[in-house]
């Protein structure tokens, strides 16, 4: 019994089995290692991307607000307010005291400024464009989480583009030939407004910022 046990058992387990066991253990260890690495790296990445994004949103918002949105909005708003008030003033004046051409010019300026949107005059966000390009280039390599983030932003952009399209349609149907006016167009309107002020005799020099 005892002899049989000691001779048969080691034989069975010793020769092929033990070696196989060792190889299996090694490959299992490797795949376990890879799995471990992937799992923990991904978990870290997932939480990191959320934390990084949340931490930076406010900073980005404040930057965009202070450096682009507010000054650009103010500039356009000022022009609209100036043009609108000047038109009202010219409209008050009794017929004959102001040239019709001046009144018409004021009205044309007000109308020209009316359809201008942020997207028409906003400077490009080069950093954002660059990053979007990187995503495109890295397409297949991208982590699922990163794609999720990108998808979220892409959806926002799609909505914006759709809005722009609707605006373009609106503007296009209403004002033939007066397509989207960009920065140049606004600058031109400003120059015309300045000239009109001079023509009308309103000293608007201190107004121009």
């Amino acid at each position: 019994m005892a002899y049989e046990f000691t001779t048969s058992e080691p034989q069975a387990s010793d020769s092929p089995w033990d070696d196989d066991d060792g190889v299996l253990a090694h490959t299992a260890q490797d795949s376990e290692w890879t799995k471990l690495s992937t799992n923990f790296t991904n978990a870290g990445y997932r939480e990191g991307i959320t934390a990084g994004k949340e931490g930076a949103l406010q900073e980005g918002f404040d930057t965009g607000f202070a450096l682009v949105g507010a000054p650009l909005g103010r500039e356009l708003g000022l022009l609209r307010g100036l043009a609108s008030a000047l038109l009202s003033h010219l409209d008050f004046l009794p017929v004959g005291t102001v040239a019709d051409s001046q009144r018409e010019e004021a009205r044309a300026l007000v109308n020209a400024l009316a359809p201008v949107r942020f997207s028409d005059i906003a400077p490009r966000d080069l950093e954002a464009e660059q990053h979007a390009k990187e995503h495109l280039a890295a397409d297949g390599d991208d982590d699922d989480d990163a794609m999720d983030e990108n998808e979220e932003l892409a959806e926002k952009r799609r909505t914006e583009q759709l809005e722009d399209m609707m605006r373009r349609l609106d503007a296009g149907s209403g004002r033939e030939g007066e397509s989207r006016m960009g920065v140049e167009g606004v600058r031109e309107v400003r120059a015309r407004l300045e000239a009109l002020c001079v023509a009308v005799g309103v000293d608007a020099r201190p107004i121009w910022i």
Partner: protein
Amino acid sequence: MSDFDLEDLVHVEQTFYESGHADGFAHGRIHGLIEGRALGREKGFEMWEELGFYEGAALMWQAIYAKDGKDTDRAMHHARHLLDLIGRFPRTNPSADDGIDISALLRQIRSRYKALCASLGVRASLRVATADDGAEAEAEAQGLNESPARKAQKGVWKVDGAPAPPQGLSF
């Protein structure tokens, strides 16, 4: 061999997690900045387009009245106050932390603008009413768009860096 594995495994999990976290954080930060910028640009534009309109109108009426030598007119009193109020409005992202009540200031600005228009309207005839309607409709529309968004902003957009200090709210 097995001792080494067990010992190292604990650190290795942490190391993997941390390296993943660092990469993710850097990437998330880029997206946060981009998305935040996009929102901030829109919001700042929207807010200051409205304020700029009032400012421009007040400035133009001042210039027009100055030309006519009517600086002391009641309308010019409104224009001065309107410009003063707008001057107090922060050019950076306003937040509750500044100690400045943005919604209240905006309300004051809008009603002062209406008062300016009303006093101008009294002096002049119906044309102002039309110009006024347009401007007010614009203001109303923006007000409607803004009120929920602004409320949300109060909560969401907590400001880290304090914008320019308010010059006081007394009015």
